[in-house]
C-alpha cells in the first residue's frame, strides 16, 4: 500500500516544474527551461509507472486506493479533502497523459526554438499537465473540477499564446466562453450531488448511486454530460475546438487532441454508475449526440484546406466515437479508443507541425504536395498515423474503432450505420490530406509567386522527429491492449473491470457477425482510401468540396449571427433592466431615506429647551393615554 501513496507525486512534479519555471524561467532561458519542463513531466511519468507497477501487484479488488493529502474545506457537513484516487482507470489515464505529454514537451523544445516567449510557453505546458493530472486523479468531484478549470484556463493561455494577432486572442476567448457553458453543467451537477448524497467523494457518490432516484440520477448525468460536451467538443459546444488551432501546434497535439478533450469521456466513464441509474434514454441520447457529432465533423473535415483544421475536425469526430461508446455502455472501448486516438492523433498533429515548421509557417494544403522526398521521416510517420486513424488493420485505430462499432451494432444498427459512414469519410479525408501534402506535384514550387515565394522545405531536427518515431511505434502496437481474439487478450477490459465492469454492456452477437462487421469496416476504410486516391492523386473524379462543408454547415456563422443579433438585443434588454429596475430599486430606497431625512431635519432645532419641551409633552401625552385607558 505504501507505494500507492506515491500517487501524490504524479501531479506534484509538474507543479514543481511550473513553480520553478514561473520564478526562474526567464533566467533559465532557451533551451534549459524546456528541458526542465520535460524533465518534470518525464519524472511524473516515471512516478505514474511506479504506481502502476505497484497496482499490478495488488489483486483486483484492492486496486482502488485513496490517498488524502490534506483537508481543503470543512464547512458544516461539507467536507472536502485534497485527495487522490489511484485506481485502474485513473492510472491508465495518467500513464498516457504523462507519457504523451513528455514526448510533446520534448518536441516543443524543437518547435518553439527562437520564440521570444519560450520559457513562458513551458510554464503553461507544465501547469496544464498538473491540472490534467488533478482532473484525472482527484478523489472527489471538486478536485476534478479544480483540474477541469485548470485545463480550461491553460487552454485559453495557450490558444491565445501569440495574442498579438487579433484572431488568436479571440480564438482563446471563444474556447474559454464555450467551456464556461459546459462548466455550468458540471457545477450544478455537483450541487445536486451534494444535496442528494451529501458528499462529493467518488467513493461515496458512486457507491450511493444505486440508491438515487432515477430522476435525480438522470439530472446529474445529463448535467455532467453537458460539462463533458463543452470540454470534449460535442454538438452543440464543439465550435471552440477548430478555432483552438490558433495556438502552437504542439499545444494542439497535447491539449486539443490527446489529453484535455478526452476529459469529458473520462468523466462519463468515471460516473458510469450514475448514468446506469438514470432513465434508459440517457445513454441513448449520449450515443446519438456522439455519433451525430462524429458524422457532422467528418463531413466538414472533407472540405477543409488548412492542414490543422482537417485534424481538428477529425478530433471532434473521433471524440464523437468515444461518446458513442459511452452511450452504448462500452466504457472499455471508449477508454481504448481514447488511448489509441491519443497516440495517433498526437502523431498526426506533431507531424503536421513538422510540415508547417518545414514549410516556414505555411498551413494551406493547396500549396503543399510532394513533400515525401524532402521530409522522409515526417512522411513515413504521418502515413502510420493515417493508416491508424483510417482503420486499416493491424494499426491501433482499427481495433478500437471496430470494438465501438460492434457495441453500436448491438445497441442499434442505425447507430452502427452512421458510425460506418463516418468511418468511410474518415478514411477519405485523411487520405485526401496525405495525398495533398506528401504526394503529387510540388505545388509550392510551381505556384510560387510574389506573395508566396517558393519555400525550401526541410526535414525537422531530431528533437521533433524522435517523438514522431516513438508515437508512430505506439500507433502500430497500442492496439494489442485489447485484442478481440480471445478472452485472455482483452487486457484493458480485465484491467478496467473493477471500475466499469458492473455497468459494461454484455454483447449478444455471434462470432460470425463480429467477423462480418470487422470485414465491412476494413472494406469501408479501403474504399475511402481508394476514393481519395482516385480523386486527389489520379484525378479521375472531379473533387467535390461544397462551400457549405468548407464553411462547417454555417454553424459557426449562425451562432455568431444569433449572438450578434437577437442575442445582443437580449443582453441589451437585460442590461437596461439591471440599470433601471434593479439599480433603480436600490437607488430609490437610498433616495427615499435621504429625502425623508432632509424633511425631518427641521425638527432638530438645536435648542435644548425645545427638546425638553418635546419630552415633557410626550410624557404628558403618554400619561393621558394610559390614564384614560385605565378608566
Amino acid at each position, binding site marked *: 500500500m505504501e507505494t500507492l501513496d506515491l500517487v501524490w507525486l504524479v501531479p506534484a512534479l509538474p507543479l514543481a516544474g511550473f513553480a520553478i519555471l514561473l520564478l526562474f524561467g526567464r533566467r533559465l532561458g532557451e533551451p534549459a527551461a524546456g528541458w526542465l519542463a520535460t524533465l518534470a513531466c518525464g519524472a511524473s511519468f516515471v512516478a505514474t509507472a511506479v504506481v502502476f507497477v505497484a497496482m499490478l501487484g495488488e489483486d483486483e479488488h484492492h486496486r482502488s486506493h485513496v490517498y488524502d493529502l490534506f483537508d481543503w474545506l470543512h464547512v458544516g457537513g461539507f467536507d472536502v479533502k485534497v485527495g487522490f484516487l489511484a485506481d485502474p482507470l485513473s492510472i491508465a489515464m495518467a500513464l498516457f497523459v504523462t507519457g504523451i505529454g513528455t514526448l510533446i514537451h520534448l518536441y516543443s523544445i524543437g518547435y518553439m526554438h527562437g520564440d521570444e516567449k519560450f520559457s513562458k510557453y513551458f510554464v503553461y505546458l507544465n501547469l496544464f499537465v498538473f491540472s490534467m493530472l488533478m482532473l484525472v486523479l482527484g478523489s472527489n468531484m471538486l478536485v476534478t473540477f479544480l483540474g477541469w478549470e485548470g485545463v480550461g484556463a491553460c487552454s485559453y493561455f495557450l490558444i491565445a499564446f501569440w495574442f498579438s494577432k487579433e484572431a488568436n486572442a479571440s480564438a482563446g476567448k471563444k474556447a474559454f466562453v464555450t467551456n464556461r457553458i459546459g462548466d455550468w453543467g458540471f457545477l450544478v451537477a455537483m450541487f445536486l450531488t451534494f444535496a442528494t448524497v451529501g458528499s462529493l467523494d467518488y467513493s461515496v457518490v458512486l457507491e450511493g448511486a444505486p440508491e438515487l432516484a432515477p430522476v435525480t440520477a438522470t439530472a446529474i448525468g445529463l448535467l455532467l454530460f453537458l460539462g463533458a460536451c463543452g470540454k470534449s467538443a460535442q454538438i452543440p459546444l464543439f465550435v471552440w475546438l477548430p478555432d483552438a488551432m490558433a495556438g502552437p501546434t504542439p499545444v494542439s497535439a497535447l491539449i486539443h487532441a490527446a489529453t484535455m478533450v478526452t476529459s469529458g469521456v473520462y468523466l462519463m466513464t468515471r460516473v458510469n454508475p450514475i448514468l446506469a441509474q438514470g432513465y434508459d434514454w440517457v445513454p441513448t441520447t449520449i450515443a446519438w449526440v456522439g455519433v451525430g457529432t462524429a458524422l457532422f465533423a467528418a463531413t466538414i473535415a472533407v472540405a477543409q484546406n488548412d492542414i490543422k483544421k482537417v485534424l481538428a475536425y477529425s478530433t471532434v469526430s473521433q471524440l464523437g466515437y468515444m461518446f458513442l461508446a459511452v452511450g452504448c455502455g462500452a466504457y472499455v472501448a471508449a477508454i481504448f479508443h481514447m488511448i489509441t486516438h491519443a497516440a495517433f492523433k498526437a502523431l498526426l498533429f506533431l507531424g503536421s507541425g513538422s510540415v508547417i515548421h518545414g514549410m516556414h509557417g505555411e498551413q494551406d494544403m493547396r500549396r503543399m504536395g510532394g513533400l515525401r522526398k524532402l521530409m522522409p521521416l515526417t512522411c513515413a510517420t504521418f502515413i502510420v498515423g493515417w493508416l491508424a486513424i483510417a482503420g486499416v488493420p493491424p494499426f491501433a485505430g482499427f481495433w478500437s474503432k471496430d470494438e465501438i462499432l460492434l457495441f453500436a451494432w448491438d445497441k442499434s444498427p442505425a447507430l452502427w450505420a452512421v458510425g460506418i459512414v463516418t468511418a468511410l469519410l474518415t478514411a477519405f479525408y485523411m487520405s485526401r490530406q496525405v495525398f495533398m501534402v506528401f504526394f503529387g506535384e510540388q505545388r509550392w514550387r510551381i505556384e510560387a509567386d510574389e506573395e508566396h515565394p517558393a519555400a525550401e522545405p526541410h526535414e525537422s531536427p531530431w528533437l521533433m522527429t524522435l517523438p514522431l518515431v516513438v508515437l508512430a511505434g505506439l500507433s502500430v502496437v497500442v492496439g494489442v491492449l485489447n485484442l478481440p481474439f480471445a478472452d485472455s487478450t482483452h487486457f484493458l477490459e480485465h484491467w478496467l473491470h473493477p471500475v466499469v465492469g458492473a455497468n459494461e454492456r454484455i454483447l449478444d452477437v455471434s462470432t460470425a457477425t463480429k467477423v462480418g462487421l470487422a470485414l465491412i469496416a476494413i472494406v469501408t476504410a479501403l474504399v475511402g482510401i481508394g476514393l481519395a486516391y482516385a480523386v486527389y492523386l489520379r484525378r479521375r473524379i472531379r473533387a467535390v468540396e461544397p462551400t457549405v462543408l468548407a464553411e462547417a454547415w454555417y454553424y459557426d456563422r449562425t451562432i455568431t449571427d444569433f449572438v450578434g443579433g437577437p442575442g445582443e438585443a437580449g443582453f441589451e434588454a437585460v442590461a437596461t433592466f439591471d440599470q433601471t429596475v434593479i439599480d433603480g430599486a436600490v437607488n430609490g430606497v437610498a433616495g427615499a431615506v435621504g429625502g425623508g431625512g432632509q424633511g425631518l*431635519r427641521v*425638527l432638530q432645532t*438645536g*435648542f435644548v*429647551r425645545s427638546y*425638553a419641551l418635546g419630552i*415633557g409633552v410626550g410624557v404628558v401625552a403618554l400619561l393621558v393615554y394610559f390614564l384614560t385607558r385605565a378608566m
Partner: protein
Amino acid sequence: MIAVAEVTPAWYLVLGSILFAIGAVGLFVRRNPLVMFMCVELMLNAVTLTFVTFSRMLDDIDGQTVVVFVLVVAAAEVVVGLGIIVALLRKEPTATADDLNVLKG
C-alpha cells in the same frame, strides 16, 4: 394639644412629585445651563425618593437596588455634564443653553 400628624408613605410620594414638578418647571423656564442641569438632578432625586418609598411600602428590596444604580449613573452624568458646562462658560461667561445649538439639523 397639637395634633401630631402621622408621617405616612403618601407624604414621601407627595414630596417626590413636588420636587419633580419643581425640577421640570425649572428645566423649562430657566436658560442658565448650570441651573437647568441642577433641575435635572432634582428630578432624578425625586424619582429615587419615590423608588425608595415604594420599596418600603411593598417590602421589596428591588426598588432600593435601582436607586443605587441611578446614583452611579447620575454621578457619571454629572462628570460629563459639568465638564461640558464648564467648558462652555469658560468660553462664553454669559452663555445660555440656547447657545448650544451646533447640533441643529
